[in-house]
């Protein structure tokens, strides 16, 4: 009897672990990319070029759903263009992914321009250009010094954001991060463990907004909505591309970053220069073409499919390519 119960419980725990591993994280975004619709505009199908068959590529990504979806989109599009494609979509932090592309372990991976500038090239968050193009130009120049090439950015951008429940925001009359002044001392803030020391996260809130919080608690990124729902966190660090923000508008809000401490980053695809030369012109063409439909709205929809509806990143990417007309 008892042993059965224990086993049942162990089985339930295992199932939960599986469910969790399928639907963990998303990294934020934002901005004005709300224009385009699902149709993907001027798409046009990707044409397979037989010359590409002799080129083998390995597409990487960092280890959270949005990145894995992007990795899949690029990998499947390149496959459609005739390349031999493998994927390695669980590269951990940006440090690991950056090293992997430099060492040639992967051909390329998607990185947020803002992350690249602050994390790899020591740019202060307030110096990160707010507009996509100058930020891209700046990152591209820095990558070039390392022998890497960055392709033009996606339409959508992603950023950290201070989020809370709609109820709490109303009670405390919060709309912008500056509204926290004088109130934050009695509020708890939850964020990823690395948020505590990052200048584009807690360290920036302290330095540029002069905010002090009652306490900061590190939690796994996958728990960022759980702590709000539980009522444990007053404030939680969310991502502007989070599907929860679109799907549960009446429940969660993000506070406007009025001092622009959290730089928004459009995604740029980074490869080694030698890889780009070897792969030929279809490489850049395919990547730039397939990301044209990736507006904020579309990215949130794709994140929702994976995080909320538990599709695999592979399925979500395939659905995107098909509905936007890139593949048949």
């Amino acid at each position: 009897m008892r042993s059965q119960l224990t086993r049942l419980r162990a089985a339930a725990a295992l199932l939960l672990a599986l469910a969790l591993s399928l639907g963990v994280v998303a990294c934020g975004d934002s901005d004005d990319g709300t224009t385009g619709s699902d149709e993907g505009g001027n798409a046009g199908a990707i044409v397979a070029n037989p010359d590409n068959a002799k080129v083998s590529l390995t597409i990487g990504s960092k280890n959270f759903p949005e990145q894995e979806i992007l990795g899949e989109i690029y990998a499947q599009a390149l496959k459609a263009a005739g390349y031999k494609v493998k994927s390695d979509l669980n590269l951990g932090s940006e440090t690991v992914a950056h090293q992997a592309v430099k060492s040639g372990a992967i051909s390329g991976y998607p990185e947020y321009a803002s992350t690249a500038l602050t994390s790899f090239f020591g740019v202060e968050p307030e110096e990160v250009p707010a507009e996509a193009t100058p930020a891209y130009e700046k990152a591209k120049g820095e990558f070039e010094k390392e022998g890497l090439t960055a392709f033009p950015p996606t339409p959508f951008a992603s950023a950290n954001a201070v989020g809370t429940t709609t109820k709490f925001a109303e009670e405390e009359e919060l709309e912008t991060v500056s509204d926290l002044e004088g109130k934050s001392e009695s509020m708890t803030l939850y964020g990823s463990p690395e948020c505590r020391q990052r200048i584009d996260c807690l360290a920036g809130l302290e330095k540029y907004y002069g905010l002090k919080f009652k306490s900061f608690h590190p939690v796994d990124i996958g728990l960022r909505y759980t702590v709000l729902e539980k009522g444990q966190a007053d404030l939680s660090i969310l991502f502007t591309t989070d599907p929860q923000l679109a799907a549960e508008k009446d429940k969660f809000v993000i506070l406007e970053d009025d001092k622009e401490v959290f730089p928004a980053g459009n995604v740029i695809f980074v490869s080694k220069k030698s890889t780009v030369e070897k792969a030929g012109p279809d490489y850049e063409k395919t990547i730039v073409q397939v990301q044209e439909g990736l507006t904020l709205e579309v990215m949130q929809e794709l994140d929702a499919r994976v995080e909320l509806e538990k599709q695999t990143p592979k399925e979500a990417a395939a659905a995107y390519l098909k509905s936007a007309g890139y593949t048949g």
Partner: protein
Amino acid sequence: MIGVSPLSPPLASIQGAIEFIFTPQTSNVTGGKTVGGIDQVIELTLNQLELTVFALALSLVVAMPIGLYLGHRGTGELFATVIGNAGRAIPELALIAFMAALIGVGVLNLTIALAILGIPPLLTNAFVGIHQVDRAAVDAARGMGMTEFEILRKVEIPLAIPTLFAGIRSATIAIVATATIAPIAGVLTLGDFIINPNVYGDDGVLAGAILVALLALTLEFGLAALQRRLTSKGLKLSPA
């Protein structure tokens, strides 16, 4: 300087890790604030020890009475071993996430999750240790008029000390090592260095791993010394 080192040669050096432990280092993502250094190392080590003590205490309170009682009675072997084996199969991360939704994150969540890790070895070893005590010694004690509780306290427990302590040591190592993941659920332990390579760099990751290993070894040696002091002379293989 915490930087991005090429994948090969080695990601981090022992020398870099040792520097990280003693001296605060610059970091790419903190906007000028230094990270690491002995003060932070001490703070995180104490947090990890505190969490370990809480979890070990809870697992002792739960497992010991049951294990000792069942061992003394000589019944419930199936229960003790099944709990022991099935308990080890519970994935810790899933447990923490599961309890995060029930009771939230923080010290209580982690104490319970880590205690569950400590219970199996304690329970199994307490049962086996007491159960295997020479029946002749127990019968003799009973013949001398000892109560059941006296038999347990004065005869069985002293004779079972090596096995009981083996359980306590396994539980302690499992708990202190796993307390490394606590920063995903609200408590900053040495794992902070390991899971945040963007902040601490490769040297910080290696430093964290070294510190956790040192902490575990220190506890292991400490408990071994305690065990030697508590073991009755007649049970020792060599004179102390």
